[in-house]
């Protein structure tokens, strides 16, 4: 039987669109097989790797993967854990033993992390259909004090970081801000003054909006090199 692709690599497809026909192709993420055809099940970009066809979703909730660095907000404090909102379909929990500090038995947990605190944590375990376990033990994992939080679509995170962190280090260098990008699409920016933070935030949002444009690094470089020109009211 003849097998062929019906769409091209990097085409935008919608659910129910036929991507390929024939059994020579294999369905990956965001696709499914119906008889001899492969169909898209999500709105996104087609990615073909040899025989492997998948759809990279352009929108959607964050789905946690073990080892991800995430930024979340403490939304509840229970007896043995903090419950953290990381923006996914399910909640996340930070257990007592996963904190870097020594916590005495019976102490008030809100002294360490209180309601509304922003924490930078790592996913250690994903329980399907239930939730996520977090840890704060590790380099760079801590509470985020001050600064600001931006929210971007989780699928755009790789673009914000860039190849080997090229994009993010460019912004860091030009604005001298501290930036942490969580895989869940939350970006924490802290600079020495508000202007720096606003410039960094603008750059991040620009990357999110124009993530599909070629030569984005140059564009961002240009935007940030202009300096304080773009602060209309801030």
């Amino acid at each position, binding site marked *: 039987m003849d097998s062929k692709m019906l769409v091209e690599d990097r085409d*935008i497809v*919608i*659910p*129910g*669109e*036929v991507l390929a026909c024939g059994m020579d192709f294999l369905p990956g993420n*965001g696709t*499914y097989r*119906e008889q001899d055809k492969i*169909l898209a*099940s*999500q*709105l*996104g970009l087609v990615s073909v790797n040899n025989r492997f066809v998948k759809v990279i*979703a*352009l*929108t*959607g*909730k964050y789905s946690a993967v073990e080892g991800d660095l995430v930024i979340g907000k403490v939304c509840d404090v229970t007896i043995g854990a903090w419950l953290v909102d990381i923006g996914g*379909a*399910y*909640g996340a929990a930070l257990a007592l033993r996963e904190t870097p500090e020594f916590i005495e038995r019976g102490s008030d947990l809100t002294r360490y992390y209180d309601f509304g605190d922003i924490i930078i944590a790592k996913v250690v375990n994903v329980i*399907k*259909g*239930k939730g996520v376990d977090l840890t704060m033990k590790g380099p760079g994992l801590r509470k985020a004090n001050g600064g600001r939080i931006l929210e971007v679509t989780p699928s755009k995170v790789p673009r914000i970081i860039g190849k080997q962190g090229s994009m993010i280090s460019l912004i860091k260098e030009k604005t001298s801000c501290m930036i942490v990008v969580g895989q869940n699409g939350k970006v924490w920016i802290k600079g020495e003054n508000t202007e720096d933070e606003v410039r960094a935030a603008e750059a991040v949002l620009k990357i999110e*909006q*124009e993530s*599909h*444009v070629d030569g984005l690094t140059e564009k961002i470089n240009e935007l940030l090199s202009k300096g304080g020109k773009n602060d209309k009211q801030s």
Partner: protein
Amino acid sequence: MTSRVDGRKIDELRKMSARIGVVKRADGSAMFQIGDTIAFAAVYGPRELHPRFLQNPEKAMLRCHYDMASFSVSERKKPGPSRRSVEISLVTEKALSSVVDLKLYPNAVIDVFIQIIQANAGTRCAGITAAAMALAHAGVPMREMVAAVSVGKVGKEIVLDLTKEEEDEETGATDIPVAMTSYNKGITLLQLDGEVNKKELIEALKLAGKGCEEIFKLQERVLKEVYSGGKNE
């Protein structure tokens, strides 16, 4: 072909337009307009379902909420759920749940809110069409798209996409809302209010299929436009 009250052909849809990302705080949203009927749909989720006893460990719950704005009709509609809106919420849920991949999110809920801003017949169809686009925009995995259109019998003629004027015709028009899926062409909603015979119903379904085809094209165009044109969400 005889022309209708508003000068359309019997197999002609009213003028349509659609937009994506109309509700900024929602995970996905869409607007769909057909003639004077305007529907807004917003999707939230998948997210945790509370109270816990409603959770289903096998699959997610799809929760639809259909309502008409009080100013959407000429006679003020009392706000809040009514017998009619509860029924429409339910059929909308059934029309969409067969395409949404609910097994991927056990214990969760996907909320779909449909608000009719302006009504001129075919509101449940417009609502389903908008909701399908909003679900796709929210990145919810779904097997295919859904579109809906109403067909009916006005006088002796089987026509596509009735207006309020046609529905209220003296001899009593028959209204048949139909929802179809884009790939399998399966029917996920079929209601009938009035009288038709078998032959007429088959003809009506054919006409509905044709109408849905046009709506699928619009849905596809609008959904792709957002990401290819570099437009803002």
